[in-house]
């Protein structure tokens, strides 16, 4: 529970929002609740659907890109013979 208590302590010290003319509301407490939910979802996916999309895109691009790099390496390793 230690880190839970420490996170809560930070809320007390956070600047109270006086954001009157500008639009920024302090959404940190909501985020803290969201990311501390005991639902076993890994951190990198815990933010919602956008997390999953970004994760999938990154994985596809890196793994796919690696396969492409190995392909290019294979092509470069066997140069075309000059006629």
């Amino acid at each position, binding site marked *: *529970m*230690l*880190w*839970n*208590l*420490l*996170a*809560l302590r*930070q809320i007390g*010290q*956070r*600047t109270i*929002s*006086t954001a009157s003319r500008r639009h*920024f509301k*302090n*959404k*940190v407490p909501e*985020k*803290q609740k*969201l*990311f*501390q939910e*005991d639902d076993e979802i*890994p*951190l*990198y996916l*815990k*933010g919602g659907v956008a997390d999953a999309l*970004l*994760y999938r*895109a*990154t*994985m596809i*691009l*890196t*793994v796919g*890109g*690696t396969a*492409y*790099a190995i392909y*290019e*390496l294979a092509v*470069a390793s066997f140069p075309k013979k000059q006629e």
Partner: protein
Amino acid sequence: MTHQSHAYHMVKPSPWPLTGALSALLMTSGLAMWFHFHSTTLLMLGLLTNTLTMYQWWRDVTRESTYQGHHTPPVQKGLRYGMILFITSEVFFFAGFFWAFYHSSLAPTPQLGGHWPPTGITPLNPLEVPLLNTSVLLASGVSITWAHHSLMENNRNQMIQALLITILLGLYFTLLQASEYFESPFTISDGIYGSTFFVATGFHGLHVIIGSTFLTICFIRQLMFHFTSKHHFGFEAAAWYWHFVDVVWLFLYVSIYWWGS
């Protein structure tokens, strides 16, 4: 549900070290493809996946700290050591380029004409744009200190203003330096003078861009109420990095621009 009985942060498994490593492979093999086969596909893919990795990895660090509270005082201490060690490694990185510059400029070879700057090189006037650049970075060092004190004194609006000024000064430096590069009478291929000048100032410029990016992230986080007056290590790390960038410039200015002309 079990809980830890210590104050340290046992990080959960993450895919970003893997994607980061793969993006490094794509960037390096991409460079080879560009240099030898005139194709930029792999390189672009590498840069994109590298950016995606950095974004998600550091987003997760913010989640672990600001949202989950894992950055206890001992954890923060470790992060401080880490940032200091990283900046120290960067100091050694730049030391190499300064070594190269002094090696060639302290004992100029007969091929260069036996003097420095070498024959045929018209160096930039250190009292023109380079001096302006010096004042811009020094001023940004003042404004970032103002931002820090405002943050510690819970002065939200002043902190935002001062940090914005710092970022704008950084951008101004970058634009000025870019224009200097464009207008310069000598290029990177103009012998050892060109090589040492553009490699040293070029890497410095890259670090200014990195530092400006780090500061911009801090700016966004400040707008989102992430920092408290007592706990804002991300900002401190950015400030340390920024001061380091400033100090490197001072060495560049004195050694290459001033003494080297």
